[in-house]
């Protein structure tokens, strides 16, 4: 799908603050977002810092977003366990899925996390959806419903080539 279409769908659903760390999986989407005057982007230094910033949006009545690569999921474990899931503070995580399917896909540093990414979210009981090129709106709505019902963060997993 087109990067502009992706962000338009998120903005329509009230998401207009993102903090994060870039990923090549959605390089074009990143560039479009940074150039979008309707999105406030904070280039956080780590994924946990990004989640802290995005969580503040909840207190102003909105829903904050994080963009990141799945290699940073480990950096989210502490704030998820003893902040977001404990206080029940939601956030919307856009996670680039490097190493999808395990080796020989992608570079070696992504093989192990690539194969285990969904297991991490399952273990942490963080809802997630996998974005496909033709299912943007229903996928977003399912994820947002899960996020709002449980008042916890939820993750949208984005493989290479899905957003162009």
């Amino acid at each position, binding site marked *: 799908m087109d990067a502009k279409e992706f962000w338009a769908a998120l903005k329509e659903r009230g998401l207009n603050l993102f*903090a994060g760390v870039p990923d090549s999986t959605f390089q074009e989407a990143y560039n479009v977002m940074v150039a979008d005057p309707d999105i406030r982007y904070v280039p956080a230094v*780590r994924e946990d810092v990004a989640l802290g910033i995005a969580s*503040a949006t909840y*207190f102003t009545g909105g829903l904050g977003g994080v963009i990141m690569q799945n290699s940073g999921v480990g950096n989210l474990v502490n704030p998820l366990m003893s902040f977001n899931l404990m206080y029940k503070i939601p956030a919307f995580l856009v996670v680039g899925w490097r190493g999808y399917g395990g080796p020989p896909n992608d570079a070696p540093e992504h093989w192990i996390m690539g194969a285990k990414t969904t297991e991490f979210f399952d273990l942490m009981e963080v809802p997630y959806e996998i974005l496909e090129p033709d299912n943007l709106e229903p996928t977003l709505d399912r994820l947002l419903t899960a996020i709002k019902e449980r008042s916890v963060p939820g993750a949208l997993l984005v493989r290479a080539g899905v957003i162009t």
Partner: protein
Amino acid sequence: MIARYQAIERILSHIREADLVVSTTGMISRELFTLDDRPGNFYMIGSMGLASAMGLGLAIQAPHKRVFVLEGDGSALMSLGTLPLISSEQPSNLFHIILDNEAYESTGGQPSISSQFDLAETARSAGYPWTRRVDDLEELESALTEVTAAGQLSLIVVKAGIAPVDGIPRVSHTPEQIRDRFKSAVQA
């Protein structure tokens, strides 16, 4: 050297009803809770190191509010990268205060490495426009008066002693109670 409890008391004397305070895990949140349990306090009882990130997010998204971040040297060291990030955003409504007792007092007083360098100097290098290290209550008072009048991003490092105070309870509100009353305070 200032007793941390007295430092928090002095900081509170500069805080108005509408202000937001994000306090770090451990004794700092417990002492804040004991001294003045106000709805605008967010006791970040877990996730060590995250208070400054949450404070930054609030300062950006609630620009009409004054946001005070109260953390220790241990939590500041854990998220040192947040200093240049905050500086790059330059929120003029963020007042960052590090209570530096050179130790992990909440876990038994194990020494941290902050005795070996100056966190105020670190913040200045990171781009904070106003930083100061204070060693006694008078210096803290004058620093607080200056920063609250200046309306610019600031960081005060308060050199605090390890002086455990007896009878400091844990925060008795549930996490969701802390969240809900803080949300009301942000939107007030």
